[in-house]
């Protein structure tokens, strides 16, 4: 037995605040400064990566709402992103809808599609639901490549660049602000959602659905709501992909996309907003880092270039496996551990252990 140490709030405002402690505010401020200053110093290469990370963060938070918070496994992320991307792109391209409106329409339509695919969750659980979403993914993928009249089949669709206040937003520097705004907005919304009645209901359904229904949570409705909320943001991520590159190709929305996003939330931490961001960053940057290493050793080992894609694939798998075995709660937990270490230094208390006891 040890005395609890750490932070104890004495005011309700502090207890309910998202970032009540001065140190937390300081860290948030530093992060905001970094995010605001980054595009002015970063090279085009890094800006592009940053945009990809921001888009992936939106998608990962969306997926985490469903998988991490509500416990419904989905292998259909790629399909939902495809619905978002194609809706946004085609509305703007064919009907001249302003890009903001078409992005919003894409989010709503994806949410509707997500709700529809969530219907089996009424009857199916765990692995059966996973397999059902796998089938949904394959069927949407087929529709994407074969419904030529609408999606253009395997041909790429070129989407007009988004324009804001007369400025074309298709450069990486300009798009960065949209992407960061979307990522921050999504994170803030999700963080607040999880503190609300609905968010608590999500977690109750995940932890023990029967108990949840006993205390008055409508399990089916909650699950559908989780599918809808999650798909809304996944659709947003898809629409952002369409406007980031100004091009839509079906290869970006395959089963491997679903797997990559699942890997992000596993590596980052299930049921954690911070984890969604950290995982999105790691999984997005990992292939780029491996490519860089490959380039660096190209002179000494010329055959390395041909091995790069395989190295990326193998390392991707190894990272997933290592996290699952050694830190199933992901990067988010590692970050907490590091914080706790300094927080209570020089003592060895860990807040996590108190919870486990």
């Amino acid at each position: 037995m040890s005395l609890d140490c750490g932070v104890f709030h004495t005011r309700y405002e502090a207890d309910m605040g998202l970032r009540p402690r001065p140190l937390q505010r300081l860290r948030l401020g530093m992060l905001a400064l970094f995010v605001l200053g980054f595009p002015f110093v970063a090279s085009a290469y890094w800006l592009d990566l940053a945009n990809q990370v921001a888009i992936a963060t939106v998608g990962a938070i969306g997926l985490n709402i469903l998988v991490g918070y509500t416990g419904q496994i989905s292998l259909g992320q790629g399909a939902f992103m495809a619905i978002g991307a194609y809706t946004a792109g085609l509305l703007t391209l064919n009907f001249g809808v302003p890009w903001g409106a078409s992005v919003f329409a894409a989010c709503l339509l994806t949410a509707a599609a997500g709700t529809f695919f969530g219907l089996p969750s009424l009857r199916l659980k765990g692995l059966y639901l996973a397999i059902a979403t796998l089938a949904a993914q394959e069927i949407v993928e087929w529709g994407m490549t074969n419904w030529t009249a609408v999606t253009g089949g395997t041909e790429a669709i070129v989407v007009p660049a988004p324009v804001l206040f007369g400025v074309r937003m298709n450069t990486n520097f300009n798009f960065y602000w949209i992407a960061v705004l979307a990522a921050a907005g999504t994170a803030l919304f999700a963080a607040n959602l999880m503190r609300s009645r609905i968010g608590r209901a999500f977690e109750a359904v995940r932890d023990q659905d029967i108990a949840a229904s006993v205390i008055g949570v409508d399990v089916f409705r909650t699950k559908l709501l989780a599918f809808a909320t999650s798909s809304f943001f996944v659709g947003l991520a898809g629409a952002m992909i369409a406007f980031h590159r100004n091009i839509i190709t079906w290869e970006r929305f395959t089963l491997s996309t679903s797997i990559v996003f699942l890997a992000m939330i596993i590596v980052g931490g299930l049921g954690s907003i911070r984890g969604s961001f950290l995982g999105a960053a790691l999984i997005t940057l990992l292939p780029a880092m491996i490519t860089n290493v490959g380039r660096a050793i190209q002179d000494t080992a010329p055959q390395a270039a041909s091995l790069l894609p395989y190295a990326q694939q193998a390392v991707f798998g190894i990272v997933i496996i290592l996290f699952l075995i050694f830190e199933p709660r992901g990067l988010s937990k590692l970050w907490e551990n590091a914080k706790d270490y300094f927080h209570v230094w020089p003592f060895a208390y860990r807040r996590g252990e108190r919870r486990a006891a």
Partner: protein
Amino acid sequence: MDIFLQLTVSGLSTGMIYALAAAGFVVIYKASDVINFAQGDLLLLGTYLIFFGVAQVGLPWSLGVGLTLLLAVAVALAIERLVLRPLVGEPIISMIMVTIGLSSVLRGVTGAIWGPSPRSFDSFLPAGDIVLGPATLSMARVLSIPIALAVLAGLGLFFRYARDGIAMRAIADDQQAALSMGISIPRVFGVAWGLAAVSAALGGIMLAGIVGVSPNVASIGLRVFPVVILGGLDSIAGAILGGAIIGLLEVYVGFYVGHGLNLVVPYVVLVLMLMVRPYGLFGKEVIERV
């Protein structure tokens, strides 16, 4: 009619390879409740190992098959011991993701060793054709059907009569009761992975004989899901029947309907099956419903 016969043989032989992959999946699921997304990659490993043994080292066929089985079992045992044992009792999402990770690693490693291009070599299955009335059937495809059936029957008999097979069924039934009867669970898990590897490797060897060696073989791993859901997740007989149905459905739809529908039709069947009879044709009716 001759086209129909050719399609049927081709569909059945593909279906039997699906069944071999699915049987490995079923064995692992039965014993340890793990959903193996890496089953297709075990198949892929089988095709590359036989290619390595026969075409690259120059072993005779019998030795090549032996070497393939040996190496495949070694890999499977290593996977079970190093990756899956630490995760016993973890939630389903971890199990799914860890086998997806494994699949990625296996694909990366085989790709790094053997490269992206398809390879071909002299098959051990006789190359000729059988002329049956108006139909011309490929000998290799015709022969692969009884071979696969024999292997699957062997697996079925193993479950029924062998000590480890019975132990596996006991564990599937009730893990704690099995433990208290002195059954070693780690041993049974190891046997399950070994058997799955053997079944997948044999499927891979036959695939190498019929269509050659290429990285695309791994995509069969996803075809396993319609097969096992159709047949029942915990039934070998279901895997055989499910494999045959999916294999036939693919070639019939591919030929008579077209439009690439053959790629998606197994998943439509899967969805319908999940709605009507989620435990499959032969599965136990204990699926957890909400």
